[in-house]
């Protein structure tokens, strides 16, 4: 090998790294730096001395356990409800009945609305004299003086109100991912299932769902991550502290308390580190359980 081809092969090997270098720099600056700062900051007090006080505060926060419970309860139930409904709707749309396009369009409207609008809409609906009660009254489901107090502020009704609103807003985006996955499937794979002895249910179970696995994994991961981060809709509906979640506490301390008492900023950093660890471990756990790592080893 002469020196010319040698140097060419070095360039060839280096090329991919050179090409991704700008991205790495960008990430390092805008992503890694704040993350490292947060990790770092959580371990220091305002005078720059190392301390575990911020974490102690978090774990002794009377809202902490409640926040963990609420976060996970809402995440699990809402993701489950959303997945089942979105999957059902996707199957329906995938039949390509007449008007399926219009239905898909209408169904995706919630995606276009910002949280604030969604909250305002539901608040108007769920108020004691809101449109939901008046609807229920008009269809004769409740008596005139039998109005349901949806927004009582009690824990369980609040949680379910939040789950319903969240599902309402999120189902469309999940549905779109699933519909896209379904439309990518070769129709003949399913037809072969029917020919070779399958009923609708067995074809769904043994062919459609296994083939949609990577789509389902994607949809669920995206949803789980954002479900764990739920806070805006809760705060908009109920304000802070009535239904605390991990992220709503984080925001509460950094936004409401830190301006008056900067130490809350350090505490919020500790919160964010904990949330980051929880989310990452859940995602890794999920990928592991769903077998996504195995697939790459095989490939």
């Amino acid at each position: 090998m002469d020196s010319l081809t040698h140097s060419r092969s070095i360039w060839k090997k280096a090329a991919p790294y050179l090409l991704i270098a700008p991205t790495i720099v960008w990430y390092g600056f805008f992503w890694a730096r704040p993350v490292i700062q947060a990790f770092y900051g959580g371990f220091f007090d305002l005078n720059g001395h190392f301390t575990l006080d911020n974490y102690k505060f978090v774990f002794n926060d009377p809202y902490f356990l409640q926040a963990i419970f609420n976060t996970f309860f809402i995440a699990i139930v809402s993701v489950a409800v959303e997945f089942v409904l979105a999957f059902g709707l996707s199957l329906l749309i995938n039949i390509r009945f007449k008007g399926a396009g219009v239905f898909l369009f209408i169904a995706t409207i919630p995606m276009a609305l910002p949280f604030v609008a969604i909250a305002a809409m539901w608040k108007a609906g769920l108020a004691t004299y809101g449109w939901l009660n008046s609807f229920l009254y008009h269809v004769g489901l409740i008596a005139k003086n039998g109005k349901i107090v949806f927004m009582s502020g009690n824990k369980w009704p609040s949680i379910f109100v939040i789950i319903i609103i969240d599902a309402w807003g999120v189902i469309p985006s999940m549905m779109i991912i699933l519909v896209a996955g379904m439309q990518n499937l070769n129709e003949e794979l399913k037809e072969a299932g029917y020919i070779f002895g399958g009923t609708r249910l067995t074809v769904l179970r043994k062919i459609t769902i296994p083939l949609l696995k990577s789509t389902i994994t994607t949809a669920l991961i995206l949803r789980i991550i954002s479900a764990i981060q739920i806070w805006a809709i809760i705060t908009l509906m109920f304000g802070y502290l009535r239904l605390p979640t991990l992220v709503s506490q984080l925001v509460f301390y950094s936004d409401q308390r830190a301006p008056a008492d900067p130490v809350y900023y350090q505490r919020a950093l500790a919160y964010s580190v904990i949330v980051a660890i929880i989310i990452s471990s859940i995602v890794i756990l999920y990928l592991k359980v769903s077998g996504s790592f195995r697939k790459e080893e095989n490939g």
Partner: protein
Amino acid sequence: MADLKLENLSKRFSRKVWGVKKMDLSVKDKEFLVLLGPSGCGKTTTLRLIAGLEEATTGNILIDGVDITDTPPRKRDISMVFQSYAVWPHMTVYDNIAFALRFKHLSKAEIDSIVTETADMVKIDNLVKRYPDQLSGGQRQRVALARALAVKPKIFLMDEPLSNLDAKLRVVMRTELRAIHQQTKATTVFVTHDQSEAMSMADRIVIMKDGVIVQIGSPDDVYFKSTNVFVAGFIGMPPTNFFTVEIIHEGTDIVLKHPFFELKLDNERKSMLYDYSKRSLTFGIRPEDITITSEKNNLLKERALVVEPQGSLQIIALKIDDKIVKLVSAREHTVFPGDMLFLTFKQNKLHFFDIDTGERIGDL
């Protein structure tokens, strides 16, 4: 095994679009029937109707005399090889073949022996543990075939199964499919747009166009007794050459008059055209029925435009009256572009067609 009957079968996709229109067809027990036609002719729709993947708009489908028009696919006792193979990528070859068997209340050992037997038959016995993405296209096709054979169906349906294979493998698979058919004797309906595939494999060919059957017959029937201009032009490679001619009476003779030649008919031909005197008609002649002759006997002369050597044969294209005419001749004398050729037609190989309807005139 079984016979299959289609009675007045129609599939209407929308108000104006018919996939299949009032089709009557009966497929005999053990027959290898090929549905042939250009794309959009309704051949695949017909197959999917038989499979139960499309719902018939009118008519009935009967297997062994039992009406299965409204029976779901899984209860029809049919199996199918798809154009895309439709081998399930998340299952091993073994599981692909065993899929249908597992619905049949068979023991593990029984399933195992059927899978082994069919995998053996299509020569993939060494691949059963693999996943489809570890197989070549040809091997996947064999998996699809094994899966369809394993259920020992009454009717075996194949939707252009060879169209995704390379040319050489396609020819190999034709022979193998025929051999498998001779072994299993399963009544088979095979869809293709490739006329040479149809000619080489079929017991009978059903030629379709625009959702209706144009001709049913043996490969020889459709080749030598094409029922109309469409069939004559569709079957055969290169296709039949067509000329529009006028029929002229000269004394007791009948002459076909074309701007470039005048062809005096023999007695047999004359009687066939009795009803057509003094009118125009289309006649067709197959490329191998145009012969190169001496200058003395020629009917017409023209220079060769393009010559495609084909080993022992050559396909010669020339232009007559601004239309490309192709003929096939033996390579005794290799022809070169620009050579002057003296040509004549074999009288007994002329095909006459009505100029308006395109229907065949006379029965030969």
